């Protein structure tokens, strides 16, 4: 198959590329960049993409697929479909499945299942066996099977000694430990501790529960000269700590979710369980600090923490509801609306935080837009205005606080592995 992406703006800060051109793609490979000749148009399917951009395919490094274990909430297939629909060509999936991704078999199972998907799926291995925080998982075997990082996400690695061991061990593969930073002896509530938690009478989670673990992790990473990645950073202090650590040369990276830069704990006021997440939605001061940190590079990338839950699990008392929201299909819209259109980030920074930096953190090659390269691209329209409709989600779960929200910026199509996802269907290219 041969397709032509006509009048598109090819954009890749890694290649200093920003130009209006056309791309010919044959059998999944970029074979021409430049003007389309009548000859080209004759024997290829032509897409006119005036004013649309294409960049290296977007990548989300924090996704919870529920397979194996809770296939009623999400499977590898539906998760990958939601990712394609949301504009991603690659995702990393977290190990809190049942069983956990703590053996090479589970890594292989996921990779095997994902093999024919357009979206590349990279499993994150567990740090400890069954994510219990006691015994190291077989990290070398996980790495050999294809794990791209290690995490006990859902909980922090509680014991500093175990974390130390894991950080040292992971250095052999140059992979980061991704930590969910939460001191559970301080946390355990249902929302951020603030004026709002007092008003709502909900058990509070203090922001310092995150800050304490972030500081411990940074100090250990510095001491061991090892790599730490802070998952879903959400507080002002944590951001300050990471900024300071980076200035001291500590090998730290950090991600933020769209909900943590879009919403504050004001959203909890209606006791909507779709505003319950971990870390919880914080205050205005935290959001301001996060925006600043995105701008100055303290925060490396945007990740959804896509956490599908069944409707009946969320339609319960706030305190009993599970944490998390689906995010793959709102991430791009929220990021462009809140960051690009509000002039927090330039387009170049947007692409770094949506496509490039996450791959760098996980040692995954960054797709190139050049002749001979495999077409791994996201085509997006930064200006398209659209309304979120959870009933249109491809994810099996619909737990989102953003239903009916007006957004500006959207993925138009994704291309990878010889396929294109465009207007709701897959096309061989």
């Amino acid at each position: 198959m041969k397709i032509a992406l006509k009048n598109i703006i090819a954009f890749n800060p890694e290649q200093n590329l920003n130009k209006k051109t056309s791309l010919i793609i044959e059998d999944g490979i970029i074979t021409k960049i430049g003007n389309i000749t009548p000859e080209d148009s004759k024997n290829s399917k032509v897409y006119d993409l005036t004013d649309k951009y294409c960049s290296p395919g977007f990548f989300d490094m924090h996704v919870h697929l529920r397979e194996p274990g809770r296939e009623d909430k999400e499977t590898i297939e539906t998760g990958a479909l939601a990712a394609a629909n949301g504009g991603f060509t690659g995702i990393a999936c977290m190990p809190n499945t049942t069983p956990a991704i703590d053996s090479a078999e589970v890594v292989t199972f996921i990779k095997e299942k994902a093999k024919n998907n357009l979206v590349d799926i990279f499993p994150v291995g567990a740090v400890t066996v069954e994510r219990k925080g006691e015994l190291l998982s077989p990290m070398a075997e996980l790495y050999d099977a294809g794990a791209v990082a290690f995490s006990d996400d859902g909980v922090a690695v509680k014991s500093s000694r175990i974390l130390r061991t894991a950080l040292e061990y992971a250095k052999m593969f140059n992979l980061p430990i991704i930590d969910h930073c939460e001191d559970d002896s301080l946390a355990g509530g249902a929302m951020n501790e603030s004026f709002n938690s007092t008003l709502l009478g909900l058990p509070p989670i203090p922001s310092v529960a995150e800050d304490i673990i972030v500081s411990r992790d940074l100090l250990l990473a510095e001491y061991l000269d090892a790599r730490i990645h802070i998952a879903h950073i959400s507080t002002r202090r944590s951001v300050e700590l990471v900024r300071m650590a980076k200035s001291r040369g500590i090998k730290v990276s950090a991600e933020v979710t769209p909900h943590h830069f879009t919403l504050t704990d004001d959203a909890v006021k209606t006791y909507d369980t779709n505003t319950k997440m971990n870390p919880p939605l914080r205050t205005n001061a935290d959001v301001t600090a996060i925006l600043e940190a995105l701008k100055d590079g303290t925060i490396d990338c945007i990740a959804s923490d896509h956490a599908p839950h069944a409707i009946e699990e969320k339609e319960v008392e706030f305190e009993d509801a599970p944490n998390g929201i689906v995010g793959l299909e709102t991430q791009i819209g929220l990021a462009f609306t809140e960051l690009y259109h509000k002039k927090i980030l330039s387009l170049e920074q947007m692409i770094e935080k949506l496509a490039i930096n996450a791959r760098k953190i996980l040692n995954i090659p960054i797709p190139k837009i050049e002749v001979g390269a495999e077409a791994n691209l996201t085509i997006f329209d930064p200006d398209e205005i659209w309304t979120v409709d959870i009933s249109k989600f491809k994810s099996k779960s619909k737990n989102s606080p953003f239903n009916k929200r007006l957004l500006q910026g959207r993925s138009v199509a994704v291309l990878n592995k010889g396929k294109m996802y465009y207007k709701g269907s897959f096309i061989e290219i």
Partner: protein
Amino acid sequence: MPLTSRHLLGLQGVPKEDILLILDTATTFKEVLDRPIKKVPTLQGKTVVNLFYENSTRTRISFELAEKRLSADALNFSVSTSSVKKGETFKDTIRNIEAMKVDMIVVRHSAAGVPYFLTQISNCNVINAGDGTHEHPTQALLDFYSIREKLGRLQGVRVCIVGDIAHSRVALSNIFGLKAVGAEVSVCGPATMIPGFIEDLGVKVYHRIDDAIMENDVLNVLRIQLERKAREYFPSIREYHNYFGITRERLDRLGKDILILHPGPINRGVELSSEIADGMNQIILQQVTNGVAVRMAVLYLLGTQN
């Protein structure tokens, strides 16, 4: 003049006029309660469900009595565990109850926000009989009723709530309601039991009970929970009693006469000394009657809106 809301979910945002209307209506009903035939036909034909997810015999009986005095059909629905543990969602339970053609739901739950959630999924009038550590509006209203009965006014009265403010559902309702009617509100307790940001509500914080006694007209003393979990917040009962307990000796030493309220049951020797507790029998009994009158007023005002 009707109430401004269809529900009584809490006292946050409830206007002064509504609170005073409830208290004035309660006065009328208290007279009914003194009659030989303690019943009025006001809510005849209305069905009220007392939906209690948490054991609270006192509050439930008070509501039930209020409903019967108003001639409503009262149904009790007690669920011992949360819906999650039971495997049925809260929503399913409500659908089942609504199918019984219910007009009003009185709900008590250990989780904050449940009464609000109920208004989203049901057409009934909802009355919050206590949700988690959020609000317990009828308890606060009966406190206001008792204060007004004793002191003749609420405007300008200085009320201090003493005890575990952070884990109390009564404290917030008292704070919102008392502020609305023009009283001054403060709280007193160990720092670990005062929720963060409470000063942002315009509430003064005391950590010395003597100061609280000297600078207030009313002490609303909360019951201290003695379970293990609550005990994480102070070193020992002895220490709590010595530093925050109200004793005869303390009041005599300060030479201060002060109105003391307590929602009951009292932990003698903890928040109140035995002598103080003995002296409160009268007011506690009055509080019980006032509780029925206030709940009749709330049920009546909500149940006859349309």
